[in-house]
């Protein structure tokens, strides 16, 4: 066996993850609470935080706002491809390092596709301010899946041949059945998963529309999961077609009703991207990569996060016309009668 890196676990080890779940109260109880309560109860200094969604789709934006307001310390962020969630968390570290700090990132991609690169990623990485471990989208998804399956690792092909296997904790073995090399990836079991979904009931059963991304895997792998939802609906409605439920209630610890909870990113059936807001936010950070001032960015955080009580207050700042336009754009993608 070829060992590329010394093994260590970020988040929970497989045995710890098992133990945490065995000891957890998994009963069907009312898990509704405020975002304030959810974040303060379930996000701790030093946590490995699994981030749901994909790039700027269904990212847990509202949860990130609340984390920033409360402050966070020494987090490890784990995700496949993300946009606004790490951008907001990382940007907060740029303007308030005393209040918000990321220690490490395990990721496949951090940028915004059509909306551009991530200046925060460049800033933090090029200045050596954080640890990171590169993986691919499938690698990170499979690592969460291994965590969700209660396995210490999962075999995959795709770190083979390139440098990802050399800069990560991948181990290559000769397949005992075929003799050919195969990669083994260590499971990821975050301390807490952050997930935004279209609909949930009070127990935490979640319906996801469009891509499931890796949300179910993150929720099942994590010791705790915070869910925000566009619609909080009855248990009877959620379970009227049980196969629509993508995350079952025992995997969820907090359910918070937050309309526009992934905004200015997109959420299928609810709203399309507000590209202007995404680009506008990135433009505040971009000059900093080349040594520019943090003032504009600081002002943004003061106005939109530190200066408000809740995510609802942030959404309030958008013109209703714009919110409706983004809802209309999504209705064009995905036409439905109300």
């Amino acid at each position, binding site marked *: 066996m070829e060992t590329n890196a010394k093994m260590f676990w970020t988040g929970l080890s497989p045995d710890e993850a098992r133990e945490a779940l065995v000891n957890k109260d998994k009963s069907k109880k009312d898990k509704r609470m405020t975002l304030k309560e959810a974040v303060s109860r379930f996000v701790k200094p030093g946590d490995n935080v699994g981030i749901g969604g*994909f*790039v700027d789709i269904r990212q847990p934006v509202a949860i990130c706002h609340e984390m920033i307001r409360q402050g966070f310390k020494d987090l490890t962020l784990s995700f496949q491809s993300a946009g606004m969630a790490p951008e907001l968390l990382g940007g907060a570290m740029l303007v308030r390092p005393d209040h918000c700090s990321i220690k490490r990132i395990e990721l496949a991609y951090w940028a915004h596709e059509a909306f551009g690169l991530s200046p925060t990623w*460049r800033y933090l990485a*090029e200045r050596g301010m954080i640890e990171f471990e*590169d993986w691919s989208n499938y690698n990170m998804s499979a690592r969460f899946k291994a965590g969700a399956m209660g396995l210490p690792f999962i075999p995959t092909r795709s770190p*083979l*041949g*390139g440098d990802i296997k050399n800069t990560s904790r991948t181990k290559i073995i000769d397949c005992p059945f075929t003799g*050919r090399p195969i990669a083994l990836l260590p499971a990821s079991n975050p301390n807490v998963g952050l997930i935004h979904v279209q609909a949930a009931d009070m127990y935490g059963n979640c319906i996801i529309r469009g891509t499931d991304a890796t949300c179910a895997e993150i929720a099942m792998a994590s010791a705790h999961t915070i869910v925000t939802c566009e619609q909080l609906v009855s248990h009877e409605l959620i379970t009227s077609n049980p196969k629509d439920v993508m995350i079952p209630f025992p995997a969820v610890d907090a359910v918070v009703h937050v309309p526009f909870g992934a905004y200015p990113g997109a959420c299928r059936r609810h709203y399309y991207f507000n590209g202007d807001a995404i680009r506008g936010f990135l433009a505040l950070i971009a000059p900093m990569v080349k040594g520019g001032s943090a003032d504009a960015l600081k002002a943004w955080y003061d106005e939109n996060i530190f200066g408000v009580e809740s995510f609802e207050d942030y959404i309030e700042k958008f013109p209703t016309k714009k919110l409706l336009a983004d809802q209309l754009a999504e209705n064009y*993608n995905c036409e439905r009668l109300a």
Partner: protein
Amino acid sequence: MTVSTDYTAQEIIVVAGAKILEDNKIVFVGTGLPMVASLLAILTHAPGLIPVFEAGAVGPPLKRGLPISVGDSKTFTGASYVKGLNGAFELTQRGFADFGFIGGAEVDMYGNLNSTMMGDFPESYSKPKVRLPGSGGASDMAASCDRTILIVPHDKKKFNEKLSYVTSPGHLDGTPGARQKAGMQGKGPYRVITTRGIFDFEEKTKRMRILHTFPGETVESIQANTGFELLVAPDVTQFAPPTTEEVRLIREVVDPNGAFVKRVAK
């Protein structure tokens, strides 16, 4: 068909990409220009093309136009299958994707791609000169699609003997059976489309080879802008410039908002 006289570098890439795609095949589409090229192919010669997007959509008709993310809502409406990332990549690892269509910032003569970092490796991996977004799904497509099509802007500094980081492995070091020996699947890089021409890989050496020059380029001009020695196919031809109709389709139908195809004259 009238030849366009004001097409851009990105537009000829898109047209070339579309033409390389074969009808009725399954193509795993990376974000950016590959999405534009795939939609153009569907609207022209390949109505039976089956796009797969890594966020989970298999075979969507794309009736609502160009997605601006591989997880865009537009990719799900009317799709034949939608799970999440694991679902899409598992079926690719199984062998369902005939083509993978990916981009990168740096490429070598064996079609290995870098989209991770620029700088010394491994010394400056943790504090790179330039940090790029990272693999996304590119390394997965590279390892598991049957054949891959690469799009790279053609610049001497980005066509290098040695990459800063191999994100998406191609023909590795070009030795026979290198991919198989590494445990990978698929035949590896099939075509490279750049701002200067179209390339394939010579059968035996697996080295990049000029197949078609874009209008205004010659074998010599392309070599001059490449950081390694290119092979030259015995029958290099000039790739026909886009037609006005193709350019119209790109500008008016496929990417009317310029999400990926920027409105910069060539």
